[in-house]
Structures are given as structure tokens and as C-alpha cells.
């Protein structure tokens, strides 16, 4: 209902243009039966998932309505709620810009998670790496607030990227050295990052005599606006990064090694690739992408921060990566879908009095359907393809167990 049809069309071109999951760089029979089936799953399944989420979401809207109105049921309530959601996200120029701005960190974050998936790593630490990106870019941004734009913007953005990369390196290093599984360490680091940001904002970065801890604005380091009132250049950087990550994964040796290590760690090892180095490198790059999400949000949207930086990007990014099946190109439509929901949620809350958390419910249903449906389809004799990226299947294998062989 929301942005369903658009998203289907876009993701259809995704696997067509890019190499399919696991395909070698030079497989050109792109309209074979298999490829057609792949495209069908990539297009049809997300649409079905979104439609089912809309239906289930209606039940939640009714539930909220029943409680709020003490038993009086308004049958048209879901319709008005969804109408407000669409109105706030796609109807008109300004809502569309809002959607694009909301989708931008999801593209960065989705790329971060997807890159990890490709290497068989599950980076749940995007949230923490993003917060470090916020910290890095606000620290440098405030320091360079009065410098010329072409100096301040790149340096502040770079600082956020590097801070995120550093935060991503830690779990990669820990896994490579001791075998501590990234799923547990990255989640712990999310809480550590929360506190690091708070400590800096309440400490050295605090505006003196401000009633509540808050940083200065980043001034000239703010990302320039090029679209409407809020469309900052982070949108363009995100699109650029999609191309870069796609190129890295499918056109470079490193990308080939990453995909091999993700699909079959044993084969990668026998082929002489070094898993430890790959783990550290991939987690660092993944952290850098997450750091860009934070830098983009700070320099492009908020321009300053309080001790806590409210965002759900870290977890939405996992949903985006799963929906896009870790395909860098498909991340754009997936991010726009979730970005549109976030963008319209405010309008929905104001107009229809439906709590904005409904978006979380929709997102959860989409994920669940996405994982369950193809399995059921296969069980019923259909030929549904896997939706969870094949590479993700190796994540659990390394769970807490086998220390990584060198």
C-alpha cells in the first residue's frame, strides 16, 4: 500500500543489473530461467510482505483505537492512518524530500549490515558505530564551524567515518584474535558507544552554561542543502557509496575474497585467503559505513547533539539489509520503503492519533513474512528461493565457537 509498487519495480532492475548473490563477476546469461525466478522472488516477495504487514498493522490500529475510545470501534481507522502515512511520505515534493532524507542513513546502515552479511559477519553494532560517527563529526564540525565550507564539510564527514570505522574495528579485532562472536560484542559496544557519546557531550563538547548538556552547532560544517528545504548532499553521498560497495564486492579481488569467505569459509581458507585479516577489514569498512550514517545525520539534519542521539537507524538497517537480500543496489528501494514509513509516521501520529511505533510493528511483520514465506512456499512444493542471504547462513556457524583459524 505505502510505497509497494515503486519498490517492486526498482528492486527488479537491481538483481538484473548487478550480479546475483553468489554469482561470479562474469556471468552474463542474465535472462536465464533461474535469473527470472530470482527476479520474481526479489520483486513479488517484498510486495507480499508489505501487503501482509499492512493487514496485520490494521489489527494493531484497531487495537489502539479500541483502547483509546473505550470500546467504540471506528472501522475506517486503518484507512485514515495509512492515508496520513502516505500523505506524510510521498504525496508532494516536500514529503518526498523528507522520505529521501530519512532513507539516507538507512542506505549507509543497510550497506554496513549487508557488507557484513556478505562476509558471513553479523554487524548488529551499526547503532553504536553510528553514534561514534555522530561524535566524530560533531567534535570536528564544531571545531571547524568557522572555516570555509569546502574544508569543514569533508573533514567533519571524514572524522565521523573514521570514528565509526574505529568502533567497527574493535569487534572485528576481538573476533579475529579471540573468537569472541561479533553478535555479542557489537551489542555490548552499542551500550558502550551510548555512554561515550554522553560523556563527551556532557564533558568537553558541552556548551558552557547551557541548562542541559548540548553541543554547539556545526556551522559551516553542515552538509549543504541541494533539494527543497532539507535535502542535504548526504543523499548523493549515499547513492555514491552504493556504487562503491557494489564495485568493491563484485569487481575487486577483495570483494571476491569477502564473498568467498562468507559463502564458504573453508574454501576461502584452502584458497589461501586470510580469514582473520578479512574479518578485521570487513568489520572496519562496515563500521565506516555506519559512521557515515551518523555523520550524515548530524551534519545534514540535527547539526548538534544532546547526550542521547535518538535514532532507530541501527536496527532499521538490519531490516533494510535483509529486505534487500544484501544486494547493494537493492538497498536503495528497501531504504526508501523504510524511510518513507519513518517520514510519514509523524503525520500519522498527528492526524490519525496512531502511535508512530506502528512503523516498528510493520517492519517486524515484513521481516517475519520475508523469512517464513519462502520456506512455506518451498514446503508446499513451490520453488521459492531463499530470502535470507546465503552468506548469512554462515553467521550462526561461527557463533561463540570455533576460534577463527589463521
Amino acid at each position, binding site marked *: 500500500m505505502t510505497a509497494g509498487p515503486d519498490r517492486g519495480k526498482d528492486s527488479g532492475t537491481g538483481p538484473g543489473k548487478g550480479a546475483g548473490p553468489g554469482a561470479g563477476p562474469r556471468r552474463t546469461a542474465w535472462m536465464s530461467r533461474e535469473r527470472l525466478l530470482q527476479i520474481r522472488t526479489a520483486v513479488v516477495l517484498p510486495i507480499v510482505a508489505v501487503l501482509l504487514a499492512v493487514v496485520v498493522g490494521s489489527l*494493531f490500529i484497531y*487495537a*489502539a483505537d479500541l*483502547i*483509546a475510545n473505550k470500546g467504540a470501534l471506528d472501522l475506517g481507522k486503518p484507512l485514515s492512518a495509512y492515508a496520513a502515512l502516505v500523505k506524510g511520505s510521498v504525496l508532494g515534493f516536500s514529503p518526498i524530500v523528507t522520505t529521501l532524507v530519512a532513507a539516507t542513513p538507512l542506505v549507509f546502515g543497510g550497506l554496513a549490515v549487508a557488507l557484513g552479511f556478505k562476509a558471513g559477519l*553479523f554487524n*548488529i553494532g551499526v547503532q553504536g558505530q553510528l553514534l561514534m560517527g555522530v561524535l566524530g563529526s560533531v567534535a570536528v564540525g564544531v571545531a571547524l564551524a568557522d572555516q570555509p565550507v569546502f574544508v569543514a564539510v569533508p573533514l567533519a564527514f571524514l572524522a565521523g567515518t573514521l570514528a565509526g570505522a574505529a568502533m567497527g574495528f574493535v569487534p572485528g579485532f*576481538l573476533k579475529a*584474535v*579471540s*573468537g*569472541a562472536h561479533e*553478535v*555479542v*560484542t557489537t*551489542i*555490548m*559496544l*552499542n*551500550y*558502550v558507544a*551510548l*555512554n*561515550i557519546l*554522553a*560523556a563527551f557531550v*556532557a*564533558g568537553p563538547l558541552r556548551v558552557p552554561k547551557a541548562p542541559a548538556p548540548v553541543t554547539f552547532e556545526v556551522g559551516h560544517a553542515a552538509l549543504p542543502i541541494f533539494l527543497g528545504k532539507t535535502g542535504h548532499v548526504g543523499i548523493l553521498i549515499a547513492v555514491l557509496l552504493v556504487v562503491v560497495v557494489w564495485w568493491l564486492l563484485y569487481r575487486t579481488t577483495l570483494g571476491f575474497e569477502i564473498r568467498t569467505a562468507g559463502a564458504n569459509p573453508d574454501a576461502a581458507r584452502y584458497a589461501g585467503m586470510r580469514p582473520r585479516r578479512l574479518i578485521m577489514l570487513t568489520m572496519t569498512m562496515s563500521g565506516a559505513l555506519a559512521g557515515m550514517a551518523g555523520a550524515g545525520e548530524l551534519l545534514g539534519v540535527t547539526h548538534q547533539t544532546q547526550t542521547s542521539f535518538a535514532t532507530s537507524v541501527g*536496527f532499521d538497517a*538490519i*531490516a533494510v539489509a*535483509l529486505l534487500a537480500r544484501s544486494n547493494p543496489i537493492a538497498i536503495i528501494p528497501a531504504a526508501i520503503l523504510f524511510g518513507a514509513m519513518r517520514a510519514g509516521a509523524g503525520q500519522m501520529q498527528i492526524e490519525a492519533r496512531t*502511535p508512530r*511505533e*506502528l*512503523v*516498528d*510493528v510493520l*517492519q*517486524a*511483520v515484513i*521481516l*517475519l513474512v520475508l*523469512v*517464513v514465506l519462502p*520456506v*512455506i512456499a518451498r514446503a508446499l512444493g513451490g520453488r521459492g528461493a531463499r530470502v*535470507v542471504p546465503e552468506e*548469512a*547462513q554462515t*553467521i*550462526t*556457524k561461527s*557463533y*561463540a*565457537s570455533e*576460534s577463527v583459524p589463521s
Partner: protein
Amino acid sequence: MDTFLYSLPIIGLLFQVVGYLIAIIPTSAPIILRAATPLGFGALCGVVCERSGIVNIGIEGTMLTAAFTGWVVAIAAVAVLGPMGPGPLGVTPALIIGLVAALLSAVGVSLLHAWLSISLRTDQIISGTIINIAAFGITGYLNNVISAASPTSAGQFGKITPPAELTTLPVVGWLFTTILNQGPITISLLVCAVVLQVLLFRSRWGLRTRAVGEHPKAAETVGIDVIRLRYRNVLIGGVFAGLGGAFLSMELSNSFQAGGTAGRGFIALAAMIVGRWTPLGALGAALLFSLFLTIGQTIGFDPPTGQLGDVVAALPTQVFTALPYIVTIIVLAGLIGRSTPPAADGRPYEREATA
């Protein structure tokens, strides 16, 4: 500042740390045990699941669901049954109904995880992550809806008052206070951990569980139903996670906060690993983590004195809030090589006949 810190005699500082710990532990011990309760139950859930070969990352979401359901159902029960005077320990029928609902909801969530990971053979970490995202979203949404009606809480479980003869004993009196001056869920953690330890290593169920977790194919050939045992264990794990969640909204407090588990489900996982997949080990690790959790809080209102006090005052308070998470990472990274999980942990099992 830095030169000041470095000039401190480190040894003296260490003595002061130990002294501070000795000073605060007897008074903080009950708080430490309470803080360890959700971690401990979460870790027991992990032990039961993973010993049979199912990785459960969704403990956090399961606890969150249970905490929310228990809280809401207890409120609804009060609304339906009318307010009732509390019995012993502050127990009301509404609270009991809430607790039962909390456990059922946790078992329901676990059933979803079991179905996804055992029957559908989805990646178990992905399945757990979806459960966490879904639980966070759904409880957050419903909590928002229900809080708007500002309901009256159904209260919480009270503490047992142990006999004064025990608690006033010299030297060991505080131990009795710690263990006995607690609510029913906290005390049941200690019982559950001990019972589970015995069952896991001394009963037929325990032997079968460990066999299935180590080598499911071998277990199947001697007639153990791998699929059924795994289902059963994941559901039992759900009961433990449910108790941990119910503790948060019905014993530790009388309210529910969106996302109120605050990563406890994940610290519980770490506790399970550090405790080497044994119930008592997991309980010990949970106590260790909650010790740091409690120090992080105690240091705020009861700061140490002397040089240690100066160091503490010089550090931002966030250092201490982050302490339990940092300790978890360090212990995990340091211990992992010497802590071996069940061999078939996380591997989906496919019967030969059905393949």
C-alpha cells in the same frame, strides 16, 4: 590531569579498590542478587536451548514480551476482578494471573523461535534477531497505546522477611539477608539454577539434551527424537526467560518501560558463555556482571573516599554506567578460547529420512 593520574601509586589504589568492594558488598549484596535475577534467568534459558543445539539470540525479546504481558495482564485482571487486598508477600490474584500470562507469552515467543529454527531451519541468529526487533516494536507500540490511558499498576511481588535470628548472626548474617530477604522470583532463580544443574548432569533428560547438542545424529540412532527434544528445550528456556522478564515489571518495579530490558538478554548470553554452558556457572557469571552493574550505580551515591575517590570523581559518570558492558566484552574476549560450546550448537538438524 594525566600526569596527576599517572603519579598515583597504582598498588595503593588497588588496595583501595579492594577495600571499597569489601565495604560495599555486604550492604549491596541484596541489590547485586536482584540485578542478577534477569541475567541469571536469561542465561538459564540460553543454557537449556544451546545444550540441545539451538542458539537463542532472542532472549532479550522474549524477556521484553514477558515483562510487558505480565504487566498488562495484571492491570487488566485488576480491572476485571476489582482491586483486592494483598496477601502475604504482596501477592494478589491479579499478579498471579499476570505472572502466568507472562510465562505463557514467553513460551509463545519461544515456540516461534523453535518453529523458525528447528522446523523451518532458518538461520538461528536471524530468527532471534527478528524476534528481538518484533518484540521491541510491538511492546513499544502497545505500551504507548496503553500508557495513554494511564492505567493503575497492579502492584508488585513483595519481599520475604527472614527470621531475625538468622539475619542478625555475626559475620554471615548479611548472607541470609541477601538470599532470603528477596521476592519470590529472585529466590526461585537460585533454586532453578541448582535444580537445573543437577538435572542437566544427572538425569535422563540431561543426558539426552547434551547428546543432542553434541551429536544429534548419534542421538537419533539410539532412538532419541532430536526435533522433539529441541522443541521441548526451547520452550522450557522460554519459561526461564519469562521469569526473567516478569521479574522486571512485577518484582523489581511495578511498571513497564519501552525497551526496558536494556540489553540484559544479551548480557545473559555472555554470562552463559562465561559460565561455560552450565547452570551454576551461568549464575556465577550473572552475579559477576551484576556486581559491576551495581558498582556502577553505587559509586554515584556512595562514592569511595581518599585517592580512589579523587580518581572516581575525575572520571565521567558514564564510565561506570558502561562498566558492566565493558567487563562483559573483556571477559568474553579473554575466556572464549577456553570455553567450548556444544558441538552441534546452531546447526539445524535434518532427519535422514525426510531429506
